[in-house]
Every structure is written in structure tokens, then in C-alpha cells.
């Protein structure tokens, strides 16, 4: 077993284990925290795959931004901090059967696809520079459209959550 394989096995166990905890824990906040662990393990996995830029973006966006947003969401919806007994819906056995079938299918697909393929480990494949030049050349249109997507999400979130639109003025009139 090489060092790479050992690191992979450890990170993989953490990712899967904490993923299972997200799905099974009875505490909402714990689910979010287990999610952090799973995302962190995946960031480590990207480093093993020499995708350093993606690894750091994973830490920044997923661990840093998305999970924090989710935690805010949990706080603002005043979800119970302790155990929530009704977190599972009734169809868990059907769901489990569907999930096992899906897992079996996907794993056979990929294992049949790559039973004996090997990949060499070399550094520098996923540096920010290499990715940057590809983004601003081949993928420039989807990249620009992505900024439009972020703008629309921003506007939409403001529409749904700002309560003082028009309120301040009409209140001034009323007083």
C-alpha cells in the first residue's frame, strides 16, 4: 500500500462516515457540522488528486460559505437545537431499498469501467494558473453567464426576504 492509497482510504472513510451521519443524525445542527467534515475530507481528496485550486475553492465556498449559510438557515428557522424526533419521513425502508439499488448500479458501472486503469501521480496539474487560462479562454461564456446567475440569485433572495420595501414610506405617511 502506497502513501497515496493510505491517505485515500482514510479520507474516504471520513467522507462516507460523516455523509452517513448527515443522513442519520437526529440533530439538525449536527447534520450541518458533519457536512463540514465530509466536505473537508473531499477537499483533502482533491489535493491527493493534485487539483489544488479546486481543493481550496472547496474549502472557501463549501466549508466557508455554504455551510455557514445553512447554519444561519437553521438558526433563523428556529429549528430545535436538540434532538428532533420527527426528522425522518415514513418511507425510509423503500428509500433504503432504492438507495442500495442505486449504489449497486453506480458502483458496478464505475468499477466495470475502470477495473484495471491506473493513473500516475504528478504535481501541478490543477494550478490556479492553468485553470484560469482555460476559464478565460475556452469556458469564457459559461463563466460570464455564471456571474449573471449569481446576480439573479442575489436579486431573488432580496425580493423574498426584505420586508421594508415600501413599508418605510407608507408608515411615514400614516404617522
Amino acid at each position, binding site marked *: 500500500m502506497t502513501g497515496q492509497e493510505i491517505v485515500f482510504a482514510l479520507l474516504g472513510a471520513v467522507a462516507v462516515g460523516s455523509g452517513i451521519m448527515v443522513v442519520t443524525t437526529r440533530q439538525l445542527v449536527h447534520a450541518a457540522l458533519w457536512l463540514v467534515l465530509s466536505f473537508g475530507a473531499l477537499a483533502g481528496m482533491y489535493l491527493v488528486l493534485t487539483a489544488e485550486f479546486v481543493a481550496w475553492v472547496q474549502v472557501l465556498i463549501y466549508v466557508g460559505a455554504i455551510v455557514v449559510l445553512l447554519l444561519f438557515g437553521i438558526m433563523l428557522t428556529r429549528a430545535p437545537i436538540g434532538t428532533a424526533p420527527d426528522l425522518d419521513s415514513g418511507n425510509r425502508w423503500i428509500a433504503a431499498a432504492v438507495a442500495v439499488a442505486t449504489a449497486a*448500479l*453506480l458502483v*458496478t*458501472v*464505475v468499477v*466495470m*469501467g*475502470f477495473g484495471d486503469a491506473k493513473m500516475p501521480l504528478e504535481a501541478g496539474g490543477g494550478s490556479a*494558473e492553468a485553470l*484560469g*487560462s482555460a476559464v*478565460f*479562454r*475556452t*469556458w*469564457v*461564456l*459559461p463563466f460570464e*453567464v*455564471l456571474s*449573471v*446567475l449569481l*446576480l*439573479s*440569485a442575489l*436579486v*431573488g433572495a*432580496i*425580493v*423574498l*426576504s*426584505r*420586508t421594508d*420595501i*415600501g*413599508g418605510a*414610506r*407608507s*408608515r411615514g405617511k*400614516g404617522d
Partner: protein
Amino acid sequence: MTSHVSAALAPGGDIPAPHIEYGQIMPILLVLGVAVAGVLVEAFVGRTWRYTVQVPLAFLGLAGGFAWTIVLGLRDETHAVAAEGALGVDGPTLFLQGTILILALVSLLLIADRGTGSFAAQAAALPGSEAEQRTTAAGIIQTEVFPLLMFAVGGMLIFPASNDLLTMFVGLEVMSLPLYLLCGLARRRRLLSQEAAVKYFLLGSFSSAFFLYGIALLYGYAGSVKLGDIAAEAGRDAGSETLLLGGIALLALGLLFKLGAVPFHMWKPDVYQGAPTPITALMASCTLVSAFGAMLRVFFVAFENLTWEWRPAMWGVSIITMIAGAVIAITQTDIKRMLAYSSIAHAGFLLTGVIATSREGLSSTLFYLAAYGFTTVGAFAVVTTVRDAGGEAGHLSRWAGLGKRSPLIAGVFAFFLLAFAGIPLTSGFTGKFAVFKAAVEADATPLVVVGVISSAIAAFFYVRVIVVMFFSEPEADGPTVVVSPATAAAVVLGLAATVVLGVLPQPVLDLAGHAATQMFVR
């Protein structure tokens, strides 16, 4: 630090500027540009003026995009990939984009109609709260709807034009995210509307995760996400077949969800019922056209050599979609839900055109999409006019005797229903005939038989609605019919298109045929 970076980039490390064919993709840029301008209007224009600025802006953006698309179509040298291979500009794409833009214009008439007041005055205010009553009484409206609409339309234009799967995914999200939000903005029955938004959002992102895994498997198969490269790799019969098939299945799942094909249709009736009716009209027409465009492009370009692999599964989906859509529609008592199931059944009819995988299949699907889009926008426009004290009278029993109270509106609605059923001299007949003819020529006769049977089942229900409207006594406190000019214009446009495409379909059939002659670019 800076010297280090410049040293790393200096010797030939400069990124060469990408080549963007601005003229070819101008409709998309125009619509997205107007969306961004709309956001600026929200930021800098006073509240009282926003509506008067936003509506003409949106109209100009859509009409300008449509005019530009026509110019591109007339120039007739349209076969190209633009923007570093991200977008394909070809006959079918221009036809689809033109259809989306014109249908969005008609939907905009409904959305901009202040008389019907479909949108919440203040989406963030609690339903029934004092703040909500105050904003509603002040006549304030949420003008952010217009930029969100333009963002969604921009995504719809990108989705069927994208020449690689990454652009397609980004287009899908640009189209979907604003629609999730718009669904939750209904003025009346707020809770229903918000629940529709949550449901649409959760199921939509669930399905786009599957779509994305499909992209991953196809990327693993071909080493590229460009549709042409995937086709080339599949043509060489190299690589792992299991990856390819898994990728096709998951990608198709994501696309079929957007079309609302059975068994991925669960969201459609709920969302169509809960969303503000103008947004439902937009989704039922433009989103369907856009999703079918993407479906056609993926299956005609990337999977062109694999017809034997995906056809049997698609046969099954098409058959259950046609039958389930028609049968479940019979049991519905809400007009909007009924139209949603009708839209599901029509998605099944349209899939027979995709299954034909021939030039005729492509051109007939294009024609059917345009014809169905106009009819469905018109039908939802009629739905907004029949009103109770609490908003639209959605329940079918409330429509009893509408033919006596308002013969014109009831007659127009009956005509739209007959067009859905596919009665001759309506656009529905021409479209169905074209699609079924293409399917028969492509040896899919059993599908056509199922299609005709389920059309007959659906016709039963449409006729039942017509009977309720014309041959039962009106209730004393029945709904009133309120037609404002903009809605009337939308109804008239839908009606005119349904009649013209039914009586004189040849010019548009020729146009669709011409658009399809060179098939998709790759």
C-alpha cells in the same frame, strides 16, 4: 508578489483573448443585458417610476432579441459555433430561440398586467399581516419580477443553444433559479404559492444533481463535455460502454424532469397550480420549448449513433407519459391542474417526434412546440380573466355556465381546449399530425397508435369542460369575467396563432422544415 506572478505569466504565458461572435449570440446578450439593466433600474429609479420603466425595457429587450433572431435567420449562413464552441447557432436553435422570445413576449403581456394583480405586493410580508395589507392598499407592486423574468428567459435561450454540457448545465440553472423564485410570488393563496416554490426548488435541484452526474459519467467516457466529441467517441465504439449508458440515462432523467415526462412529472401539477398564472403560462410555453430544444440537441448530436440504446427506454417513457397525462387529467377538478396534466400528455406527444430521430421528426417537433406554446399561453390567459372575490376561480365547478355569462371568453377557451384535443382546423391537429407522420415514417407506428388513443381519452375530458361551461346553469354567485387590455391582447395573440397555424400552417411548416434542413451544428 506581483513580479513573481508576471514572471510566471510573461514568456508566452499571456492568455490569448477568446473570440466571441457577438453578432451571432446577440439575442442572448440583449436579454441578459436588459435583465442587468432592470436590476440597475430597481436600484436607482424611484419606486413610483419603476413599473413604467421596467415594462417597456423588458418589451424592448424581448422584441429586440426576436428581431435580431429573425435577421440571423434571414441571413441564412447560420451554421456556426460561437463563443469558443460554447453555443451552436444553427437553424433549429434560431427557430427555438425565436419561439421562446415571442412566447415570452406574450407571457410578458400577462405578467405586466396590473389589472389582474397576480403578484404579491411584497413577497417578504407575511400573508394576512398588516404590512401586507398596507403595501397592497398602497398599490405597490414587486417590480423585481421583470429582471427575474429576463434572467429566466436568458437561461432559456442558452439551454437549447449550448454546444457543450457545461454551458447546458449553467443555462439550466440560469433558467431554473429565477423560476423557483417567481413561483413563490403569487398575490392570492400565498401559502399554496410558497409551497409550490419549495417543492419545485427541492425537486428541481434533486434532478439537476442527477443531470450533473450524467454529465460526469459522459465526461469520464469521452474525456470532453462537447456534444460533438461525445458523438465522435461513441462512433469509434471505444471506451467503457457502461459509463456511456449510465451517463445517457442520468442526463435523460434530468432533461425529462424539466419536460415533466412521467415518471418525473410530480412537480408539474403542483407548481402549475401554485405559481402565479402568468408565470405558469411562461413555464408551460417557454420552459417546455427550451427543455425540448436541449433534449433534441443532446439526442440528435451527442447520441446520434446510439439510437438503438436509448430508443426503447424513450418509447416506454413516451407511452406512459401520453397515457398517464390523459388519464389523470380526467380526474382533475382544478382548471390549472387539468392544464398541467394536459401539458404532461403533450410532452408525451412531442417525445414521439424526438424518437423519430429524423429530419421530419425534428421539423415537426419544432412546429408542434410553437403551436402548442401559443395555445397554452392563450389558455392560461383566459384562466386569469375568470375571477372570484378571492382571485382566480380555479375550481371547475365555478366555471359552470360560463358560456351564458360570458359567451366570448367561454367560446375562446373552448376553442383552445379543442386545439389541445387536436381537432382539425386548429393548430393542435396540424402539430399532432406532423409529429405522428414523422413517427410512422421512422417505424414507430405503435407509438402513434397509443398517441391517437390517448388523444381520444384527453378529448373526452376537454369536451366535459366545454359541456360544463355551456350546458349547465350558472351559479348565482358565480365568478365574473374581468378582461384588461393586456390580457385581451395575449388571448387574441394566442387565438390568432392557433387559428392561423391550424388553417394555413404551410408557411410555418416550411419555416420549421427549412430550419431543420441542416440539422444541428456540432
